[in-house]
């Protein structure tokens, strides 16, 4: 049975919620995870790409949740030219459905408890202090008390709002996305494809992430403020008609990706936010699995330390903020400032960029070498190249 009080209640059993729960439990906290859906990992709203280097910080790659191994990123310009990138390390396309369950099982093996079909609906306050979470479970409203709430509730990020944190995204800072999982298509199983252009995917990009030789996640994200007249589905359908005319659509999923900097406030007294909820996503690539898990590890460890020391105030919890900024948060801020330029890149600029990538010998295709070449050839291209590299890292 679920107890009435835990040290930590985590809201959301995605990769970040489960990872935060795992590390909080490992560091001595009693932990309850509340998940709204009936099991972790569904529905999958994700392109499912991660890097080998990022993944092994948390878990050994396991064939049971890996669909495909990726060695190459292809960047495709609006005029159809392709640049191949081989120097970015191995990546994987996951089966998130199984991966998420595995991460949640790890958290539970460390002592965390999971309750699914438990829909958090509010926080419980006492003298303005957060002392627990209200949730709906099988038609009943229940309460659970705790010292720390961890909000890992994804794009909607309502837990933070209940605590008085401003989490709403500007339209420019969210990508509106559609993805089909398609079969009956011909692919290079080891290559991810990224398509760019104002008429292809305004303010974002279109991706093809193979899950086998004949199956792929084919999706698109476009900037929220550019989607009013023509939505992502229309762009994606146009693309598919040309690129995969005989393809069959198996799964269809819609979703949003935050492309902002990390929230100004990710901790307050008795509360921490993590992952998409804290907007801890690479704002250029939209990659959020590894980034969220990195944040979640810090968050979980500090929650554990807070429990050991009985210190639940912002003053103590803000160590999480400090370590996050050092680890990836500051980098995300830089990416965010580059994103704006990336969003308004013209087709001509994309064409030039891909052409330039192809003019560099493959073995020199490292970030440092490219910067040198770029500065020599065209200083203005430096920024674009930096961005292209960031984009290619999505496959990592």
């Amino acid at each position, binding site marked *: 049975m679920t107890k009435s009080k835990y040290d930590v209640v985590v809201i959301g059993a995605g990769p970040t919620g489960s990872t935060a729960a795992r590390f909080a439990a490992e560091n001595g906290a009693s932990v309850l995870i509340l998940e*709204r859906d009936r099991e972790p990992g569904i529905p999958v709203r994700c392109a499912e790409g991660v890097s080998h280097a990022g993944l092994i910080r948390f878990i050994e790659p396991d064939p049971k949740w890996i669909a495909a191994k990726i060695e190459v990123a292809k960047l495709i310009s609006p005029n159809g030219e392709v640049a191949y990138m081989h120097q970015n390390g191995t990546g994987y396309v996951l089966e998130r459905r199984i991966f998420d369950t595995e991460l949640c099982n790890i958290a539970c093996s460390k002592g965390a408890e999971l309750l699914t079909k438990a*829909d958090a609906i509010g926080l419980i306050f006492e003298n303005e202090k957060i002392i627990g979470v209200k949730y709906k479970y099988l038609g009943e409203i229940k309460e659970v008390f705790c010292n720390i709430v961890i909000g890992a509730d994804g*794009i909607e990020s309502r837990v933070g*709002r*209940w605590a008085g944190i401003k989490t709403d995204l500007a339209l420019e800072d969210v990508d*509106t996305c559609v993805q089909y999982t398609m079969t009956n298509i011909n692919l290079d199983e080891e290559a991810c494809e990224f398509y760019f252009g104002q008429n292809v995917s305004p303010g974002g990009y279109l991706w093809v992430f193979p899950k086998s030789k004949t199956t792929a996640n084919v999706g698109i994200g476009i900037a929220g403020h550019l989607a009013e007249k023509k*939505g992502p589905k229309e762009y994606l359908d146009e693309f598919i008609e040309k690129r995969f005319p005989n393809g069959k659509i198996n799964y269809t*999923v819609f979703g*949003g990706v935050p492309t902002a900097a990390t929230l100004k406030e990710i901790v307050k007294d008795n509360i921490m936010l993590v992952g998409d909820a804290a907007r801890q996503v690479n704002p250029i690539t939209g990659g959020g699995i590894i980034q969220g898990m990195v944040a979640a590890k810090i968050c979980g460890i500090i929650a554990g330390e807070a429990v050991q020391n009985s210190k639940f105030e912002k003053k103590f919890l803000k160590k999480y903020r400090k370590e996050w900024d050092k680890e990836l948060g500051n980098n995300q801020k830089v990416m965010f400032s580059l994103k704006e330029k990336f969003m308004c890149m013209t087709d001509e600029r994309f064409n030039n960029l891909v052409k330039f990538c192809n003019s560099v010998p493959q073995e020199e295709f490292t970030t440092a070498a490219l910067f040198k070449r770029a500065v020599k050839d065209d200083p203005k291209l430096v920024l674009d190249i930096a961005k292209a590299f960031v984009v290619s890292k999505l496959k990592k």
Partner: protein
Amino acid sequence: MKVNYELCDICGTCAGVCPVDGIEIGEFKVNIDNEICINCLKCLKVCPIKAIEEGVS
């Protein structure tokens, strides 16, 4: 605002942009609270499947 439930995929993107926390995302249903809605139309614009319309259901 009203939600076209035939289209809605319950992805939560609308709630992510709502400036007044007026959108509740359940396991099976999205609910917009028109009492607190300020008609900013952000949810309508960002919805990937255009499942949100002006007006009250």
